[in-house]
């Protein structure tokens, strides 16, 4: 039983936390792809930017002495950070992508432009914050929640941190809100119509420019949320973006680019796969070692920890080979 709880703490809790970050990030990528038909590479940097905005807001709050009991200040300032990042995302579109779209540039050109945006944001973040690491929990404590299991002979407790709980709550709220927006509201339906067929949507009187703006607002705010959640879970670094944008793209592609629900599924799939792949499975085999025909090695992880990042890509490549447009059928540019 102790071993199972160890498994739960490492794989399930870690997977849910990582999966919700990936899912929230991948929704943004997939929405942009659905509406604007290009892979938005700068999404990882929008996430980092959102996280840094949240960090600055948190410092400001702490300087002013604003705090709420039982809630890390990072979560308190999250809505403001989301609004600010959404505004910046609109500005990025206006400054970098809209002129190219107006000229009728191919999606490939927009992709390359998004790399330019990546480099600019990355450069600015490093210019102002250096290349060191920052921590949201410098002046606050990261609360660890331990739940004892009421069974005989069980000594381990189920552990998770308070940010992890809040992250899952935030993700659930965001996903539900997005679901109702897409299925119930007029604008959400217009968005889905445009993702299906942009020309037809425009002909039937949908304000496509408004839809594009709303897409950037949603993508920007979700990016800020995902970035802040990641920074709260681990650490805040300027090169956070690069390590995260690739698994997020993998999640979006695995789910089928353009499919919001697919992105959520892909995010959790990749999150769980990463934690399960580096988990030491011999822990689970040890209690039944006597019944096994072979000796249980000390470490039995599917891949060594250093290769965690590659798990996402192996899944990506396998999915692309087996079902080239993702598990849920995705759009192609």
């Amino acid at each position, binding site marked *: 039983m102790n071993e199972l709880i160890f498994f739960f703490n490492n794989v399930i809790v870690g997977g849910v936390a990582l999966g919700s970050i990936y899912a929230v990030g991948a929704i943004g990528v997939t929405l942009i792809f659905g509406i604007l038909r290009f892979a938005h590479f700068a999404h990882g940097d929008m996430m980092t930017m959102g996280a840094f905005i949240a960090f600055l807001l948190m410092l400001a709050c702490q300087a002013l002495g604003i705090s709420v009991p039982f809630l890390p200040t990072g979560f308190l300032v999250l809505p403001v950070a989301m609004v600010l990042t959404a505004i910046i995302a609109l500005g990025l579109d206006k400054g970098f992508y809209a002129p190219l779209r107006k000229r009728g540039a191919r999606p490939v050109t927009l992709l390359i432009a998004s790399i330019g945006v990546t480099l600019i944001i990355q450069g600015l973040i490093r210019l102002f914050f250096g*290349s060191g690491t920052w921590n949201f929990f410098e002046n606050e404590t990261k609360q660890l929640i331990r739940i004892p299991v009421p069974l005989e002979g069980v000594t381990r407790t189920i552990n998770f941190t308070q940010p992890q709980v809040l992250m899952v709550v935030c993700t659930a709220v965001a996903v539900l809100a997005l679901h109702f927006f897409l299925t119930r509201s007029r604008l959400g339906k217009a968005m889905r119509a445009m993702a299906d067929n942009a020309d037809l949507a425009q002909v039937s009187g949908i304000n496509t420019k408004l839809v594009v703006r709303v897409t950037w607002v949603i993508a920007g705010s979700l990016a800020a949320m995902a970035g802040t959640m990641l920074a709260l879970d681990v650490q805040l670094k300027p090169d956070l973006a690069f390590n995260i944008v690739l698994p997020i793209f993998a999640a979006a592609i695995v789910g089928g680019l353009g499919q919001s629900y697919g992105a959520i599924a892909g995010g959790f799939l990749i999150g769980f796969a990463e934690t399960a792949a580096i988990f030491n499975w011999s822990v689970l085999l040890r209690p039944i070692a006597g019944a096994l025909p072979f000796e249980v090695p000390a470490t039995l992880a599917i891949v060594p920890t*250093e290769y965690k990042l590659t798990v996402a890509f192996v899944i990506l490549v396998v999915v692309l080979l087996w079902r080239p447009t993702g598990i849920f059928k995705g759009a192609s540019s």
Partner: protein
Amino acid sequence: MIARRSLILFAGLFVLFCVIGWMLGAANISLLLVQSFAYALIALGLNIQWGYGGLFNFGIMGMLMLGGAATTFISTPIIPGFWGSEGPLLLGKALLAFAFGFLLVWGARKADRVGIRGGWKTALTIVAWAAAYIIYRSQIDVAAAYIEATPDGWIGGLGLHPVLGWLFGGVLAAGVAYIVGKICLGLRTDYLAIATIGISEIIRALLKNMDWLTRGTLTVSPIPWPTPLPQEFQASGTSITDSFIYARLGFLGLVLIVLIVAFFLVQRAYGGPWGRMMRAIRDNYIAAASMGKNITSRQLEVFILGSVLMGIGGAMLVSFGQIYDPGSFQPINHTFLIWVMVIVGGAGNNWGAVFGAMLIYITWMISDPVSQWLFNGISGWSTDLGWGAIPEIQSRASQMRVFVLGVVITIALRYAPRGLIPEVVKREA
């Protein structure tokens, strides 16, 4: 028109190099020249893939790393301690295990020949992959642990001439490009971009963590030069500054020969029937397929050819730097930088690719000292105003390169989307 413009641009570039050479001294400019010519070779490789074939390869970094690993393996001195130990035997076993695993997977994929079809075949393939992986891991982990425990900690090199290492870099890159291409080339644009990025990250993770092969983060150094080193000139009585200039000029000559040969071949290929066919596939692959061109195998061809140039270029850069540090390879420095070179220079035009490579490389290198100078100026001004100085100017200035690169590509896409020296589209009347 284009010819005149490119002449003016190249003349401008020459003047720029002269001015920078005059400011930094001959030793520094010869260093910049060698590196920018090596980057020009890599940019030519990308120009074949993207400019000729329209392939969205974002995995350049992986090819450069492979080239570097190849030249490291070929040219560093032999370690007798390793060859005398049980290491080669264990590695041989691992190789056998790999071959056996490969056969297993291959056999499972051919299972329909003996009547196993559909879901059963899929299941068999998955089991074969798992079995192959377990068998390989069971051998390689032992070998790696053994070799890493020896005094040297890695297998060393073969002690051969570095130029052989460059050739091997090309061959290795070609082999990997074949596998990557087989997997990925069915994918279109965005999917291909992500898949190639993913594969280059996998290559980086492997080379970074296979300490027994590349020493990983411990880095391999010094890697020998194909031409005489500055130390050899110093031994014969040349002054230190002059020795660096002579040695680098020697290396530069070798790089130039490779670049000119590659450029000549690539340029010939562009004008010939093969180049015409590649452009037809790039512009409209459906039409090209309907004319009977085998799209997939042609794209594989162009992908491999481009990767060969990237592998050789990467090998040259590592040889020249004399250090192989897998941790120093970054997507920004080794993938996006090359993309900016080709986009700014002009995709599809080899002169444009070379021009872009040299211009962007020099911009990349001098934006650090220039912004340092700029920040020092601003800092002095703000100190005078009483706002205090800018902290950590040096580390901040080195981050400005990334920003400048982003601004350059944004401006290029906006005002010269086809590049400074664009592709000349010939039309028959």
